[in-house]
């Protein structure tokens, strides 16, 4: 083979390499494909415009330890005088940015997230409907009688008595003033 032939074979090889690189899927996708899929589902319900950071951090720790997916759920309440399927834009104006803030934080920590919205006549009713539709392995709630974002004590009793899932209730602590609120959303929302 003369020099020209060698150069031609070399150029052909380079071209084939470029083409192969171009047609094959990117490396990141292969890596993502090989990553183990989360199996456990942790529900993190809330009702207001802020949730306890302790509850949130507990959910993150457990999700990382158990390779679980966190499912934050905004529970919207439909007044009795309105049809149950009614749209709730005013409540969503508070709940949606908080869902966004939670998702942003979880994703930045590498925790898989899949949000839900529940709707019912009360927070408990919304939660009951959600639990009827889907299976969750664990539910994390903050005992929060002031209803700023958690569930009341009656709701927690009901949860313990009726729901067949592992339930983690975090005791409200006086020093637990740190909360994740809608102000945490990065960028305009």
């Amino acid at each position: 083979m003369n020099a020209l032939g060698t150069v031609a074979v070399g150029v052909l090889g380079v071209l084939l390499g470029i083409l192969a690189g171009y047609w094959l899927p990117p490396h990141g996708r292969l890596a993502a494909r090989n990553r183990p899929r989360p199996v456990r589902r942790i529900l993190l319900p809330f009702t207001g415009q802020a949730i306890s950071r302790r509850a949130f951090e507990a959910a993150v720790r457990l999700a990382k330890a158990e390779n679980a997916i966190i499912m934050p759920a905004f529970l919207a309440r439909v007044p009795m005088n309105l049809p149950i399927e009614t749209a709730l834009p005013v409540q969503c104006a508070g709940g949606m940015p908080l869902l966004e803030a939670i998702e942003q934080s979880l994703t930045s920590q590498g925790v898989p997230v899949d949000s839900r919205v529940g709707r019912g006549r009360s927070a408990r009713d919304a939660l009951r409907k959600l639990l009827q539709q889907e299976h969750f392995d664990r539910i994390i709630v903050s005992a929060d009688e002031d209803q700023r974002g958690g569930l009341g004590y009656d709701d927690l009793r009901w949860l313990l008595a009726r729901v067949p899932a592992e339930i983690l209730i975090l005791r409200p602590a006086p020093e637990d003033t740190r909360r994740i609120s809608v102000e945490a959303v990065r960028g305009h929302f």
Partner: protein
Amino acid sequence: MDASAGQPRGRLKVFLGMAAGAGKTYRMLLEGHAELQAGRDVAVGLLETHGRAETARLAEGLPAVSRRSVRYRGTVLEEMDLPAILSRAPELCLIDELAHTNAPGTEHRKRYEDVEDVLAAGIDVLSTLNVQHLESLNDHITELSGVRVRETIPDAILGRADEVVLIDLTPEALLERLRAGRIYPLERIDAALNNFFRIENLAALREVALRQVAEEVGAKRLTTELVGSREESLAADAPQAVGERLMALVEPYPRAQRLVRRAWRSAQRLGAELDLLWVKAPGQELSDDEQRSLSALRQLASVLGARLLEEESDDLAAAVVDVACRRGTTYILLGHSRPAHGLARLRLPLPQRLMQSLPGVDVRIVADRTRRPNGDRP
């Protein structure tokens, strides 16, 4: 020009208010008197005084077309007499409460349909409407006020009005009127104050009414600017949308929820309707995870008051273009596309194809803020 009748269509002027008692009917009657004095042939087609003496007094001196009696399930109901109005054929007709539902047995189910006939006969119409009767605002106002308004009219009716006049009043002044017994009889005042006529309701309704009229003004101004220009034909071909209509392209994956929330916030800011569109491949089977995601998307759409549309097509761009034209979409939002591979790399990316096929429609790619580097943890 109404081609079928061969005569110019009448002009429609609507007095829009935030609630009963704002003074819409009163203002309509004042204008009726002014037109009468100016020498026009004016007739009251339908007036609802709701027992308000002030309103009834103002109606004196205006010629009126008598109501007709309609028998329905053993009850005699008084309704507007459309045939009599058309036969009387005044130059200007005053027809109160545009959103009213007629008794069965009349020509049309809704009063705005009667008004369409009157306009088509070349008669000008003055009418009244409360903002909560507009179809697109119904859910929003229901949640604000806790009262579901059953009588609604399509927004397009208001959009077609030649003039919309906002009858504005502060909530405090309206409550003052209510307490003074100028809106409802004394026995109904307490109930009204405890239900619909709360200051926060009225303030919210006032804001909605002001925004609605501002949008009407904007739409009319744009139309006026286009008349006579070379864009006129383009405007005539464009879908007739009232305000903005957003469409977000979704797939049954968890990340779609973020896109929906962002699209909803944009729709809220623009006071626009929101559609969600999922284009699935023909015969596509969904996995359990996808089924769950789709169900969650449906629930989210319902709570937000958005509409989830499902189309079957193997050409995503063509399906989106088709739906956008049908729905009068003005704004399309989409997330990051998956990296193309194989022959798909040679095709024009979806956003560019949409921009080419839908001139005049904004296309926005929604950023994934969770991937932004150096972001602070909340």
